[in-house]
């Protein structure tokens, strides 16, 4: 009859449903139920932690993040500033994104600025000038066009982009 929901009888094209399940990925068959977020795509709005195991050898590593307590903590600003200055960029990015709303996020922000990185407020990513190319400042002085290196937190890597940078968008 006209009112019946035909998706129950003749069904629907399943490709979008399969896509929401992450199928098909490359031709290998991946298990999907181990990280099944929810029966509906609409309520699968975040990754869920799968079954995993931390070998004991992983849980008592000393000196993580140059810290002599295990697990590591950052509770002393003076000391922390010195430590933070020793970290490589990726470690700073990790601390910045993984521990929001904490002292260490502030410290890594300051350290990255010292290294000429700037945080883009809208893109919510870090960028720095590509040293190989001098940007061209716009006539009105509010922006510049040039080549920049972005740190992409989704792919966890640096990538170079042509970009028009508005000075009020960075901090």
């Amino acid at each position, binding site marked *: 009859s006209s009112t019946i929901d035909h998706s129950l*009888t003749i*069904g629907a094209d*399943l490709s979008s449903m399969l896509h929401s399940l992450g199928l098909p990925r490359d031709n290998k*068959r991946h298990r*999907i*139920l181990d990280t*099944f977020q929810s029966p509906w795509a609409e309520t699968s709005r975040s990754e869920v932690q799968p079954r995993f195991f931390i070998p004991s050898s992983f849980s008592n590593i000393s000196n993580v993040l140059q810290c002599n307590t295990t697990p590591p903590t950052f509770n002393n600003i003076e000391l922390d500033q010195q430590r933070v200055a020793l970290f490589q960029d990726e470690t700073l990015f990790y601390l910045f994104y993984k521990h929001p709303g904490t002292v260490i996020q502030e410290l890594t922000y300051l350290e990255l600025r010292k290294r000429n990185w700037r945080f883009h407020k809208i893109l919510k990513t870090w960028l720095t000038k590509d040293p190989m190319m001098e940007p061209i400042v716009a006539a009105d002085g509010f922006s510049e066009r040039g080549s920049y290196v972005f740190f992409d937190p989704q792919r966890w890597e640096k990538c170079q982009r042509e970009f028009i940078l508005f000075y009020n968008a960075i901090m």
Partner: protein
Amino acid sequence: TQTEKYYLVFTEWVKLVQKVDDNDPMILAFIKQLIDKGVISSTDGLIEFLRASLELSVFSFKESDPTGEVFTSIDAIIKLIIKLFIMGEYKEYSRKQFLNLALSVVMMVFSDDHEKEENTFNERPYFRLFSNLLCEWQILSGHQFIKVKNVDTRKELIEFEEEFYNIIAKFLHTIQPIAFPGFSFAWITLISHRMFLPIMLRLENKSGWKSLTNLLIDLIKFMEQYTDKNSIPDAISVVYKGALRVFLGISNDVPEYLIENHYELMNYLPPTYLQLKNVILGAIPKKMMIPNPYDPDLSMENIESCQQQPNIFYNPVNDLKTLKKPVDNYLRIPSNSLLRIIIASLFKDVYERKNGIGYEHLMVDSKLIRAIILHVGIEVGIENERTSSSAVFNTKSSYYSLLFNLINNDTTTIELKYQIIHTIIEQLRYPNIQTYWFNFVIINLFVSDEWSDGNKKQEIQELILRNILERIIVNKPHCWGIIVLVMSLLKSSEVDLLSYSFIKEIPEVENMFQQM
């Protein structure tokens, strides 16, 4: 009051677990005091304490700021239950009984709340409770419970793992949607939980499959109850889409489960859910590379896997009951008297309301028909291995003649014919001996001149084509065996589909076959 004292003690626990690590000595000290000071040293005390703690946790969920940490108390109570489960050296009862006791308290509070709150019942805290229980168990059970120091306890837990999941399944069966509609969406999310479904599918010796099939049948029954010819409530449509996605996940991860349990699932699947039916019947064994069914030169005779008997988890012979003898005797020596006994048993004495395509009631026992047909298929596979293909791929064989005569007999109603052919075509799945043999059966039924009269032949041909169309005009997936059957009919020199009056009468159908 005593309950308020329990509230105070539980509140201390909630504060403590937010302040110290999971295996901090203070945790153990707190639990030891709980027992030493008599808070939970008796069964009654334990029940009342857990009940008070759970009621307080649900209350605090309802009162919490939705943007804040709404589950802190619920998370804490599960941590307490897991700790008590591991640490408790109980004299009066075993760990298994403790778990049953704790979950029974949850059931009491849950059903009370569901009953009282009616439409304002909120399923989320109870969902979180079960979800946490599954997650905590996962964390605990990693690498054969390596976190548990006590050797005896660890050994007991390793043996208990299977039972743990079947106990959870039993409680989920108790709170199924037909009984607690206010918990329906949480329930579907729980049976497909990443810490439950994949484990139930892979427990040793398939020891989780029986409970899992029960739960999936609970889900199917629930959908069927509200799948009416005229209208489907939106919420049920959403339930269906969730169910379809879950079955797609199972088909991808463990197709063997669907392959070996299709019989029971088909017994409950509403006949109108054609796409879901194709997902279940279309499952293909993981390691199998299947030939292209559209290949005009394809012949099942040359396909090795078409000689293999498919596994089945639940043997349909169990459902034949008193019919087993007449059916097996007929397969040994066909006789009309046996046939009459079998046919007479296929009719129900009260009709069953079952929304099909073109019908609303069933006068025949579709489950019994499915049991007989699958039993014949299994017997054919055995005979094929024991003697030879010619013994079974033979229209004089008792296997074929049973199916032919069930349809050809004068007492067989059109409904019974439809159900028999419908169920035979359900067996056309991935390449195996049953797909191969039932394909042989359908082709011979289609072209046979043994029917009692010409009309009957047309009637059977129409029923066969109708059942095929139902399965292939729906959106994909389509079953390998059905496509092969269609190709066989299109190629057969004895079949001229476009010449049949019942096809010419309906232009859309005629056009469809012309396309093919």
